[in-house]
Structures are given as C-alpha cells and as structure tokens.
C-alpha cells in the first residue's frame, strides 16, 4: 500500500486511510459490544454451570467419565431422552400449526377487541407452572369438567399444556414480522392469477419462514426443557431430561448422573439450535418491510364471508377461536372461577385476603408486598436483559466480510440461546458453589435474582429483535455509508428505527419472563422478600381452603399484571414507531 501512496494522489490516500481506520475502529467497537454481554453470560451462567457439571465428572480430584457408560446403560435414560424429543417435537409442531392462523388473525386483520385478545394469549406464557398444573389438572382429573376425556396424567395432556404455554411465542414472533410485510407483493401474485392459497405458499410463507423458524427454535427449547408442567401433569410416568436432572440433583445429590444428563441436554439443545440456525440462514434475506404495521395503511377488516361464501379468513378464525377458547380460556377461566369460590360461597374473599399474610400466617409478607417485590425485581431484570440482548442482536445482525468474523457472529448467536437449554437447578446450584467469594460474594444477595432472570430472558430479547434487524436490506447500510454517514450514524438512522419498534415487544417479553420465573428464583429467594410465584407456590403448599383460595386469587393477579404489562409494551411500540 505504501508503494502506491506516491502514485496516487494525496487526497485519495488520506480518505482511504481514514476509511480503513474508521472501519478498524468500528470493528473494535463491535467486538466490545459483543464482549460486554459475553462477559455477563460467562460470569453468571457459563462459570456456575460448568463448575457444577465439572463436579459430577470429578472423583477424588481426577477426571472420571465412567458416569457416561453407567447412565447410558440404564434403559430409563434412553426412555427419557426419547420422551423429551418426542414431546418437544410434537409441542413445537402443534404450536406452530395453531400459531400461524393466530398470527394472521391478530396481526394482519383488524376487528374489535383485537388488542384484548393479543394481550390475553400472552397470559399463559408467564403463569407459574404450579398454577398451570393445578388449572389443567383440576379440569382433567376424574370428576373435573373434562374428566370424561381421560387425559389426566397422559402424554397428550403434557403436549397440550406445552402448546398452551408457547402459543403466544409463535403468534407474536411471526405476527410481528407479518404485520410489516408489504401486502403488495402478495397482491401482485393475486393479480397475476394465483389463487389465495398459492399466493400464500409461494410469496408470504417463504417471507415468514425466518420468523417461523426463529419462533420454532425458541418453542422447541422451551418444550425440550419444560419442567414444572411435566412434573405436575406427567403424573410420574413421563419425565424429561430436565425433570430427571432436577430429581438427581435436589433429591439424590447424584451429581454424576446429573452431569451426564446435563451434557446430553446440551447436545440435544446444541444440535437442534444448529439445525434451526441453518434453516434460518438459508431462508433469511432482506424483506420488503413496511415502516408501519400494514393494517395502519391498508386497514384489512376481518371478513368471514365473501358474497355469501366462506371467505379466506374463515379457517384461520375458526382455528384461532378454538385454540383461544378451548386451550387458553378454559383452564384460565377455571382458575378465575375457582378463585371466586370461598368456604362461605361465591365472593371476593380470596382477593381481600391478599392484603393479609394468609390463613394461619402462611406467609411472611402480604401478597401485595410480594407483587411489589416481583415488579421491582422485574424492572432490574428487564433493564439488564434488554441492554444485553440488544447488544447481542446488533452484533449478530452484522454480516462481517471475513470468515472469522462471520463465524464469531454465528457462535455469539448460538451461545446466547444456551440458557434456555440448561436446567434452572443446575444454574441455581452452580451459583451456590461459585459466587461465594469476593468480589462476587453474591449468594445471599438479592441482586442475584434479577441477574438469574435476565439470563433466561436474554435469548427471548435476542430472538425478538434479531429477525427485524436481519430483515433490513444491507444495501441500505451500504448506501448510507457510501453517502458519507459515519458508522454510528448508519446504526442510528438505519437500524435505530427498526430496533425501537421491536424493543417494546422485547421489553414486554423480558418483563413477563421475570414476573413468572420460578425455577432459579426459588433457589435464590429470601423469605423476607419473596416474589409472587414463590408466594403462590407457598400458599398452594399449605392446607386449608383460605390458603388455596388465596393462591388462586394471587395467580389471577399475576395473570392480569402480566397481560397489562404486555399490553402497555405493545402500545409503547406503537408510539415509538413514528414516521420515518
């Protein structure tokens, strides 16, 4: 290069040099942006988990891998692995199949009460599993309203409950992209004579695939690592790798078996993530995104009938109504109805009792105080998760030129999904044996709770923000660069507006995850500052109709709280959209 300096004019060289330096500087900035969340994940996730798993593979200070042979020799291990996979695949497939019509209806069509339905479908996602277990089981048990179906303790019940939880993930992730797809592409296909189903299959579906795969990967992880719901609904017959790790760690302290199973779980999660990531990368491309949700420009009213004949909206409507009513509203309604039942008949008695510490002092604080604790913790967890998650999403959405950079970006993306694939008990127990000396003597500190929740929420933030960022046409950034915009300016003006729009949803998700998180929290919780799910769990574990009634009322409060927050997050997104 220096040889060419003399040949070419001075000005050109200077600009080139400056551009090179700017590029290098911006590369450094990207590395730093990726390093911050990575350091967070390393300290609060990788280190504790690795330490606990390492204990399982050490006997008298020496590495001992004989646990593998031992655990794999048990037929039970293979049965559990098979059950985990089958249950997760079925749960994911069903959630996607049922979620697509839902995404269409709730994000592509307008009708009265849509905002309410959108908020409502989110509620299951954040309900603590103890509550869902009771809600489902009291419906399905012999003598219950749906007892005649004989689903109690069956595999079907587990899969249905998994769909119950994860339906909203598909609806929101896919819906969020769908509402911004330019309808004109599909209209063009229709104008060229393609029937609606064909236009959908050839134009819309391929465009939606990245979001579908993205949602499916998250749902798959949730299903494959489902814990509470499998414990409660599975009776004792059905276990997953996750429940087995819990039993081996908390009940038997068999860290060897738990470590082997943790590795198995990581492999399952890792392989599925790699497959999903490949599927996504193949399909991902720049999309014709609308600045605003499509319905604001061309309001598409829901039309069930078209000149006396069933219209294209009929099928999605029927499917969505069935899901929302049977799968979501029935268990939730059951919960609500039961919360109004007191020993003296129907009344709001259980709700007034929330201001007390429960029958026979079941609690150390009132339920309202616990709710306030939950909200405070959720704010901290959300701030942490959104900051870290956004940094990750921004870095991962880049397409570095050199292969090394590309590989680094791929790994960063994958690594941040791992918290969804590691058991909460492994993280919780790992905290206890690692964060126990200064400067990180945090075991008994309340700070650890929002941190643990943020670790679980980050993957969701990334998955919410990333599809939108990735869908930005890279030419836009290049064009802005060519026109002389500095890298930070490109980021601000090109990525910024998209980012802000998806942030509302990300905040909502992070908040919801934090509010409902029970697994890791229960190991870190302090009796003087319990969260709402911890209090519900405690109330439900106490005899007496007052406590049980309060547990149900508190669950309804948690549900309403979450629905409200998701609703507000959605509104925030609207206002943040603006014109651009």
């Amino acid at each position, binding site marked *: 290069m220096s040889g060419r300096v003399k040949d070419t004019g001075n000005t050109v060289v200077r600009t080139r040099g400056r551009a090179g330096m700017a590029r290098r500087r911006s590369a450094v900035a990207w590395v730093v942006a990726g390093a911050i969340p990575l350091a967070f994940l390393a300290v609060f996730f990788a280190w504790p988990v690795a330490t606990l798993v390492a204990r399982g593979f050490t006997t008298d200070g020496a590495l001992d891998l004989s646990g593998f042979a031992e655990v794999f020799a048990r037929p039970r291990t293979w049965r559990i692995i098979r059950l985990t996979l089958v249950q997760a695949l079925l749960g994911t497939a069903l959630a996607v199949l049922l979620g697509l019509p839902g995404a269409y209806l709730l994000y592509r069509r307008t009708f009265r009460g849509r905002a309410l339905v959108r908020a409502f479908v989110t509620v299951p996602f954040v309900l603590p599993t103890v509550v869902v277990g009771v809600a489902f*089981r009291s419906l399905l048990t012999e003598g219950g309203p749906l007892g005649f179906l004989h689903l109690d303790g069956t595999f079907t019940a587990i899969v249905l409950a998994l769909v119950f939880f994860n339906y909203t993930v598909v609806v929101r992730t896919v819906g969020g992209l769908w509402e911004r797809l330019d309808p004109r592409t599909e209209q063009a296909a229709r104008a060229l004579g393609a029937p609606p189903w064909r236009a959908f299959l050839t134009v819309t579906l391929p465009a939606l695939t990245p979001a579908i795969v993205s949602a499916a990967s998250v749902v798959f992880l949730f299903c494959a690592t489902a814990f509470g719901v499998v414990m409660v609904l599975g009776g004792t017959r059905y276990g997953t790798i996750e429940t087995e790790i819990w039993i081996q760690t908390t009940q038997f302290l068999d860290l060897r078996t738990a470590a082997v199973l943790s590795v198995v779980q990581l492999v399952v999660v890792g392989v599925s993530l790699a497959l999903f990531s490949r599927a996504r990368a193949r399909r991902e491309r720049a999309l014709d995104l609308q600045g605003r949700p499509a319905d604001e420009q061309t309001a598409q009213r829901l039309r069930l009938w078209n000149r006396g004949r069933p219209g294209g909206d009929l099928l999605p409507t029927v499917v969505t109504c069935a899901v929302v009513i049977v799968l979501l509203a029935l268990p939730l309604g059951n919960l609500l109805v039961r919360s109004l039942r007191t020993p003296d008949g129907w009344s709001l008695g259980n709700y007034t009792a929330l201001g007390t510490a429960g029958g026979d002092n079941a609690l150390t604080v009132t339920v309202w105080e616990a709710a306030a604790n939950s909200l405070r913790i959720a704010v901290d967890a959300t701030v942490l998760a959104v900051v870290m998650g956004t940094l990750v999403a921004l870095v991962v959405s880049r397409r570095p030129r050199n292969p090394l950079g590309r590989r680094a970006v791929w790994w960063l993306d994958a690594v941040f999904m791992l918290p969804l694939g590691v058991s909460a008990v492994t993280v919780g127990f790992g905290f206890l044996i690692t964060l126990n000396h200064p400067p990180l003597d945090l075991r008994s500190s309340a700070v650890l709770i929002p941190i643990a929740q943020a670790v679980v929420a980050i993957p969701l933030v990334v998955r919410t923000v990333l599809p939108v960022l990735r869908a930005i046409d890279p030419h836009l950034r290049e064009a802005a660069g060519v026109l002389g915009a500095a890298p930070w300016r490109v980021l601000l003006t090109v990525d910024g507006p998209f980012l802000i729009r998806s942030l509302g949803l990300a905040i909502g998700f992070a908040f919801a995850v934090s509010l409902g998180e029970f697994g890791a929290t229960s190991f870190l919780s302090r009796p003087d500052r319990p969260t709402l799910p911890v209090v519900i769990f405690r109330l439900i574990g106490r005899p007496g109709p007052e406590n049980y009634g309060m547990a149900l009322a508190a669950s309804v409060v948690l549900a309403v709280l979450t629905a409200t927050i998701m609703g507000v997050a959605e509104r925030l997104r609207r206002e943040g959209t603006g014109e651009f």
Partner: protein
Amino acid sequence: MFHHARRSRGPRPATVRRRRAATGLTALAAIALAGCSLAGGGGDDGGADPSADGGGVVRVVTHDSFSLSEDLITAFEADSGYTLEFSAPGDGGALVNQLILTKDSPLGDVAFGVDNSFASRAIDAEVFEPYTPADLPGSAEQYLADDAGSLTPIDVGDVCLNVDHTWFTEHGIAEPATLEDLLAPEYRGLTVVPNPATSSPGLAFLLATVGAFGEDGWVDYWADLSANGLKVVQGWSDAYSVDFSGSTGAGAYPIVLSYSTSPAFEVAEGADSAPTGALLDTCFRQVEYAGVLAGAENPEGARAFIDFLLTEAVQADIPGQMYVYPVDDRVELPESWTTFAPLAPEPFEVAPEDIAANRDAWIQTWTDTVIG
C-alpha cells in the same frame, strides 16, 4: 426497497425529534422504575453490617416453609444483640443437598429444617458441628439423630393417610383404618399419594411402609397397593388440593396422604367436628432439626439461635406458624389441635442408619415397582 432509502434519508426535523422524545421518555421511565427498585432493594443488606452493641449477624438457612411470629424474632434480636438474616434456598432434600454442596463455604451459620429422612446424609457429609443445648427438653432426646449431637430436634409432625368422612358416609362404606385395609377390594381406586422421589411426605410414607412391613415386605405391599388402583401424583399439594375429595379441590379420591394435623384446617368455622380425619395407624413421624453449620462465621450466634428455638415462647408459636408439633411436650397446644389433630400414639419407625444406608435404593425400587 426504494421507498426505504428515500425514507431513511428524507425526514429529519419533526419526526426524528418526536421519536427521540419518545425514546427518551421510555428510557427515563425505565431508569425511574429501576431507581425505584434500587431504592426498594436498598434495605436488603441492611443487616450485613454488624451492629455496634451486639454479636453481629446470624445467618439462618432454612426451607421455604419456615415461619415464626415477627415479635418473637424482634425480641430475640433485642435481647441477644444478634441480627437474624434468613435465606430459604429450597425445600427438604434440596436444602440438605445445598448444605452438602457448599460445605467448604457454608451458606450461613445455622440451618433449620433438615428432617429425619435426610438428616443422616448431612451428618455423614460432616455438614454440622455438634452442639447439645443445655435446655434440651426430655421429650426431645428420643429424636436425637446421632450420639454426637450433630442436630437438635425442634419440632415433630406425623405424615398419615387422611380420609374424607363425608364421602364414606355418603357411599355407605366403612372407613379403612390400617395400611393393610387399603388392599381390600372395596377401597379399590380410592387412594392418592405423592411420589416419594419428588415429595418429602411421599418419602415419609414410603418409610412408614418399610417400618410396617419390614425390608422384605414393603415392596410386595406397594405392588398390591398399585394393583388396587393406587394413584400417584407428583407432590403433596397436587394430591391434597386437586385429587382429594375432602379438600377445596373436591376431587375423586377420598383417601389421601397428608399430615395428622390436616383435618384441623378443614373444620368449618364454629363447627365441632372435622369433615376429614387422619388414620393414626398409618403414620410416620417426621422430625425437624436445627444444627450449627461447620465453618460458620458466627458459631456463637448459631448456638444462641438454636437455644432460642427451644424456648417456651417459640415452641408454643410453632404449631400456629408451621403446622407441626413442638418437640417440648410441656408446651400447651392450641385447643383445636388436641381435638382435631392429635399425634399418632405409635407411629412406624425406621432406624436413622437404615434410612441413610437404603433411602436411595428404596426410592429406586419403589419407582421400578409402582411406576414401572
């Protein structure tokens, strides 16, 4: 795609400002809320600073069912000069396992809530430093976990089958009384119990059958029970609140595994009889212990806390707060307890060393027998 380029280049003045304002507001709101949380969280390490006039902080590790009256704790802190700090990292077995895992850097100074089905595991792992309080009540001595005095018994409770009196009256069937009765055909499909692998009362009931039928007989008993339509669910709350016909859940099973005290909670206000009852010939006694953690920073304070748990005031507070019996039999019980929640006269027993040696194998055998 063109309109994107145009847009991103085009509008500046009004809209950008508006968007920035919105973002700014959101950020401000978030910061304000976070500030609120930090303010609220400020108090949580308030006790960490050793107070000038006393013996500093005593960190109590317990299970999530721990509870004592606030004024007793305040009085203890005022009298002794110690500040109590509680953490509750789980329940039953989880608590013991965490204590073992963190042996080299203990979670606190004193642990409360280790029960007799897990005590031996903790003692074997040398988690506790022996301490025998001077005021150990005579009635507590029978419950000592070992000769060294690693653990101090604080309270006891019986895990027993409960029956729904109303159901049996309505159906004109005589109530069962013993474990053997449950195998009779008329009780087919009427019993629900929690899984011993995932539930502490479930494990206690498994131990009751080991105590009743011996090493050689208990497996056959469970096989027969299973063949007679036994239902197994994951945890106590599931069995009691969902499946039991005598609780709010109004389930389909009139026989459930619970505690001897449970009927007291089903008595309607002003009623003089309970709609449910405990079968006192089917019980296993759970003993809850407290112990000084080896390597505690404040062993003095830990011992003072154990002495405190044995004071008459705390022993009398235990039934109302934790639904179990005080280990000191001189303490007067609430009236409803003597009427509706008596302890079993002769609960089944299993020697602690047998539990220590066989617990995991028994659970495994149980799983193979009942779950398959």
